[in-house]
């Protein structure tokens, strides 16, 4: 036994190794990414780990391995589950042999996601068991339970931590126990081929299994009842920790149900909890999943218990919870005077610090050159964006992202806009990793349907936003091997794109010229801007403002680089932040910016 500070995602990764996982696939996505990275780091010689091109592919690769008896883990963020839902919905009917855990990290807030979707809801819709850990230390052992349950019922199991579990750290006791899973191999059987009749039969089995799993969950050590009295509080997932902390300052007796398995709902345990209660407050982030289940039980058993939570507006319907929100709701629920909030005092004016592209980020140069190109040709355009660091190109002064929806949608939304407004230029931005994820079908669709759009591929040789994971274009794998790099240019040519050009965005004149040629091309045109993310290369000599600066601040106003600041009319460059990309020097009208040797 050792106690160490572990991030929730590290605890889950180590817990999966302990549980004998054989194959791990995933696609990076905050807040899930570090689970797979942890396993890659400590995998030894007998665990296979890959970043797959997208979540659907990851889930299918894992399913194949699980058919043969391997214990598999698939990792993704909640919106990744939307991509993977096609194989997952069918896989539930087919089932698996080796334990298969699908880790989907939810992001209440949201902190860095498009949606506040609730994977517990998905679990109910898809008839999948789901675990919802409340802390990193709990997640470490719970992932092993998930594998065991998966094998017991031959079903994939969802494991759904939230941001405050994934990215929180805690003292975690780890041990050297390790389950050794023997892979029996694939056995030919009609059960692996989905047909309507089989699905009908298996639907009945799934329903029967859900009832059994509900019974199992009612006696799970991760769910428990404590306290007593006519009032009850339920805490699910990380929300339970807010409940626990809030109750340390309250003396009123109250019955508490801790829930870690929201589906199949542990009816038996919940009924024990409800008996003798007058009123219940449900504390759960995102959707009212537990609340609705309690209402169902009250209806079914004609229990006169008032259930409150999101549906009664006792709790906020959106956003992440906090101690403050939960403590205030509990005080009100228990009829206690709320502790006065500390007086808000007037603070001196605080500067805004919105997220921006890093100093030296080549995306800044890419956006700027497209902006300049369109200015030169005098054309009006819509700029469709996509998911990645470059979504930050929406900020002033660049202001170059007009739409952003989901992975790969920039290219396809541009096609729709072009149909509706044929006289306007449609320019789509997409990153290299996103291109491989879901960008390629959109390119093929555009070529096949003879649309007229320009696609700008921002190839920075990494998956930057999630912390620099390799992808097919980098030629590196999570097994440490060097594989053949997949050339974006060759993919485009293979898809029949008639105009493909490459340019270095940091060479402004050349970049602008290339964009003009692409935009003027009738049909699908693509510019690949190649320049590595600053986080994976060494900086150049930092830049300095010379005496000859006339204080026009054009550099700051045009590109908004965070290394530059101006007090009155004096512009300075912070040498600790400057990466020497030299974009500012190419904008200065009096050549007053240069590098130091």
């Amino acid at each position, binding site marked *: 036994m050792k106690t160490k500070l572990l991030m929730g995602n590290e605890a889950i990764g180590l817990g999966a190794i302990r549980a004998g996982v054989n194959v791990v696939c995933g696609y990076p996505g905050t807040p899930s990414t570090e689970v797979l990275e942890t396993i890659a780091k400590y995998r030894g010689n007998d665990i296979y780990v890959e970043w797959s091109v997208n979540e659907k592919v990851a889930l299918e690769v894992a399913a194949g391995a699980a058919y043969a008896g391997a214990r598999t883990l698939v990792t993704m963020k909640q919106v990744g589950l939307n991509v993977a839902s096609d194989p997952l919905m069918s896989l539930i009917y087919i089932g698996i042999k080796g334990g298969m855990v699908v880790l989907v990290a939810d992001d209440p807030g949201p902190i860095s996601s498009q949606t506040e979707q609730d994977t517990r809801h998905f679990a109910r819709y898809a008839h999948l068991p789901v675990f919802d850990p409340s802390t990193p230390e709990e997640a470490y052992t719970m992932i092993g339970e998930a594998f065991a349950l998966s094998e017991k019922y031959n079903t994939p199991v969802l494991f759904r931590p939230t941001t405050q579990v994934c990215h929180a750290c805690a003292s975690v006791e780890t041990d050297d126990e390790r389950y050794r899973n023997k892979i029996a191999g694939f056995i030919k059987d009609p059960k692996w081929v989905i047909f309507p009749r089989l699905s009908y039969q298996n639907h009945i089995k799934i329903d029967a299994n859900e009832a059994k799993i509900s019974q199992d969950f009612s006696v799970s050590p991760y769910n428990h009842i404590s306290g007593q009295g006519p009032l009850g509080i339920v805490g699910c997932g990380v929300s339970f920790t807010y409940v626990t*902390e809030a109750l340390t300052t309250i003396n009123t007796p109250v019955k508490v149900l801790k829930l870690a398995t929201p589906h199949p709902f542990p009816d038996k345990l919940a009924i024990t909890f409800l008996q003798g209660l007058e009123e219940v407050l449900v504390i759960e982030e995102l959707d009212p999943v537990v609340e609705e289940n309690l209402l169902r039980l009250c209806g079914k058993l004609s229990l006169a218990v008032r259930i409150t939570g999101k549906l009664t507006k006792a709790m906020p319907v959106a956003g992440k919870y906090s101690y403050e929100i939960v403590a205030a709701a509990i005080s009100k629920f228990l009829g206690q005077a709320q502790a006065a909030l500390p007086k808000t005092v007037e603070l001196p004016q605080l500067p805004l610090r919105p997220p921006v592209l890093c100093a030296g980020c080549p995306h800044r140069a890419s956006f700027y050159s497209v902006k300049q190109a369109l200015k030169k040709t005098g054309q009006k355009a819509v700029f469709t964006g996509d998911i990645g660091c470059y979504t930050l190109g929406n900020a002033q002064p660049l202001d170059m992202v007009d739409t952003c929806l989901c992975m790969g949608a920039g290219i396809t939304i541009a096609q729709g806009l072009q149909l509706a407004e044929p006289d306007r230029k449609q320019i789509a931005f997409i990153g290299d990793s996103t291109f491989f994820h879901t960008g390629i079908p959109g390119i093929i669709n555009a070529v096949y349907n003879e649309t007229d759009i320009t696609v700008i591929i921002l190839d920075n040789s990494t998956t930057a936003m999630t912390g620099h994971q390799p992808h097919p274009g980098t030629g590196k794998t999570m097994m440490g091997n060097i594989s053949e790099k997949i050339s974006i240019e060759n993919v485009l040519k293979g898809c029949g794109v008639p105009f493909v050009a490459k340019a270095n965005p940091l060479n402004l004149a050349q970049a602008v010229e290339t964009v003009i040629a692409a935009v003027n091309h009738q049909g699908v045109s693509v510019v690949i801007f190649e320049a590595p993310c600053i986080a994976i290369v060494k900086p150049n000599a930092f830049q300095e403002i010379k005496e000859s600066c006339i204080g026009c601040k054009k550099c700051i106003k045009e590109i908004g680089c965070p290394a530059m*600041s101006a007090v009155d009319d004096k512009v300075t460059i912070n040498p600790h932040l400057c990466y020497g990309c030299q974009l500012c020097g190419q904008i200065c009208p009096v050549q007053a910016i240069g590098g130091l040797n």
Partner: protein
Amino acid sequence: MRIDCLLAGVGGQGTVLASKIIAQTAISNQCFARTSETIGMAQRGGCVVSHVRIGDQNCSPAIPIGMADLIIGFEPAEALRNIGFLKSDGQLLVNINPIIPVTSSLGGSSYQAADMIDYLQSTRRQAVFVDGQKLCAAAGTAKVLNVIMLGVAIKQQLLPFSREEVLTTITENLPAKFLELNRKALEIGYNFQQYV
């Protein structure tokens, strides 16, 4: 030992690593530790807040408002932005060198460093101010601001650890190639004399 410590800074300043060093040192002293971060979408340059909660397993991941025993501010505006977390008798350690966001230069919101530091000083709590840039210059790199701040915090008894305990955490958990640099940074912080 029961301490809630909040670290606030700007992405790239090493705030998160400092919080992990504090938490791991507490664990080495047989205390339970829990930490969490609020980090925006930016890779660098955004606000970063780390919560370190020592000594009680029954706590949520983030420090409640008005409950922090200590705030370590790596940057004056970020220290001030989070001042509401500090207990009325909590302590403050602040690096006085501002990182002016580009939005201020674009005319979005001005950065009044002197007003902020005056305000922090006027809150009548125990407050220690350091010129981080100057101390980093002595170490030869701005990258060790986090370890320097820890050195100051230990010497000023804002954190209940010894220099040796923190050095052990650094030795056991950080890359060996930076050990000498970190050791030097810890010394520089530890030997810092507070301005009168």
